[in-house]
């Protein structure tokens, strides 16, 4: 089991950051790696169990299922159903916590998954940096940062 953990600080309130990222179908709106996204079967994007089907800018298609969504904890959990990445049992959590000192947001994005031996380092790096940190960088530049 590989664990990836990336965290950052966004210079905006947790309410504002959550409003920007809460939509499970909204990745293209804020994540630079995602080109387009739809929710399968016309489900609402905040119904637990819904599946987002999205295209990466470099061409791959990924299907992910929403497992939990909490407006109270600013947190969502999802699993990968299909992807070209070569991961199994992939579950990720995106969570925000208010930083009361300065009214900022502590953002955490973590994942656990299995993969073939020898792929661990490459995948941990591409997920931790290429997906999670790239998303945080986009949020920081969207909200401005100090």
């Amino acid at each position: 089991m590989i664990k990836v953990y990336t965290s950052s600080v966004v210079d905006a309130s947790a309410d504002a950051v959550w409003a920007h990222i809460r939509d499970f179908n909204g990745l293209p709106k804020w994540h630079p790696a995602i080109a387009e996204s739809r929710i399968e079967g016309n489900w609402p994007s905040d119904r637990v169990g819904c599946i987002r089907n999205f295209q990466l800018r470099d061409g791959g298609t990924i299907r992910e299922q929403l497992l939990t969504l909490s407006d109270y904890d600013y947190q969502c959990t999802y699993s990968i159903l299909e992807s070209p990445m070569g991961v199994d049992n992939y579950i990720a959590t995106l969570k925000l916590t208010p930083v009361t000192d300065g009214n900022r947001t502590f953002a955490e994005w973590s994942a656990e998954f299995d993969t073939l031996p020898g792929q661990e380092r490459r995948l941990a790096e591409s997920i931790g940096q290429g997906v999670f940190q790239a998303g945080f960088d986009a949020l920081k530049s969207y909200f401005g940062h100090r």
Partner: protein
Amino acid sequence: MQRVTRSAIIDAPIERVWEVLRDFNSHDRWHPAVADSHIENGEAPDQIGCVRNFHLRDGAHIREQLIALSDTDHMSTYCILDATVPLQRYVATVQLKPVTDGNRTFWHWQSTFDAPPGREAELADMVGSGVYEAGFDALRRYLREGTRRAQASVSGAPRGGEMTGQAVILKAFGGVEQLSFENIQVPAPGLREVRLRQAAAGINYIDIYIRRGEYRMLTPPAALGMEAAGTVVDVGADVHNLLPGDRVAYAWDNPGAFATLRTLPAEQVVPIPTGVEIETAAAVLFKGMTAEYLLHRVHMVRAGETILVHAAAGGVGTFLCQWGKYLGARVIGTVGSEEKARIARENGCDVPIVSPDYQFADAVKAATGGRGVDVVFDGLGRMAERESYESIARLGHWVSYGHATGMLPSLDANLQSEKSLRVSRPVLFHYTADTVRLRAMATNVFAMLDREVLKVNVRHRYPLTSAASALDALESRQTIGSVVLVA
């Protein structure tokens, strides 16, 4: 029930913050509201169930019990047993999390309690502002100044004042006889500066150019040396990413690295990753960043290209062989002796050519089927000029980054057009002047070290007092790999 939550970002790695907070009896050292504190019955402060017995500065007396402690989760939970303030059923948890983006710390402090009717807001504010928020600021100050005070008193230095160190001083341009080992006064760091206790310094060929007066980068008398590594003694008020005790290294275009103490701009230093020795950092940073910018920025080496590395058993040369091979290039190297040929081969050089008299073009041609190489990384210069030119293929690239045998004259334009030759004469410090790029380059170097692509071989270790011998050995081509001065 009242719930109070406060959180903050601390500009320090989580290990540094946790080191202080996991000690249940440390609060009278860093929190201004706490006057005195002791653990009852002489128990250890990380003993679950231990009781801290303390007074606040306003006279209040409190006994608190540690009920959970986790080094894995960086979490500590405690409750009030009895107190002269009316906080009932008070349970508090401190939890730290790493901010991986910037190596900082998120600190979450939360409690629940009951308060007498009518006093809820007053007590919630006392806990939230008077204890938690004041604690955030106090710990920040403690990490910056408290540690500095502790260190200064250990080393006997006047706090915030000058410290006396020793340095290798160049009295006038010339040979090694112009070097002397002298006491220097090292000022306290200014606003954006950092003062280092330097444990090791790397020797580079540029030190020889500077000593001879070929590069006018200093005005004698002044200290020599471009790179060093050590630990932070103290930092200026505007430096938020470094703390006393941090291990750092730098390669800066302002000479003065051959010294036991030094004050310099904080933006010039890079942290040394855990697991990398200080001496290794001093041996790798300048030469590693040189290899990084030559292979990735000046010429983007691609798999399948053939590269020619001069002085392939030298400090930069071995790195170019190791890293160039890793990038998939075929590496041809020139060296001055059979022993150096063996070293070059061990470091990834496919074809070492022994040519103490700098006659290597025929051998390079033979090794490339008459075609020549795509790029030459040339640290030799004048005496190898003709041979280097002959060794390069059409559309090739001549990267002249050093001139151990004398300055390379400007190349005749006709010669250049004869093979559509591209010529670069890059200077490392032009690339590292941008601190974002500097950090990226250093990160790449340490990543290659971590992957064991770069293998540092410190075969020559001289005390700082023997800098003259070290420079002499490098200049007379007696050294292999990296040369390091140790304080």
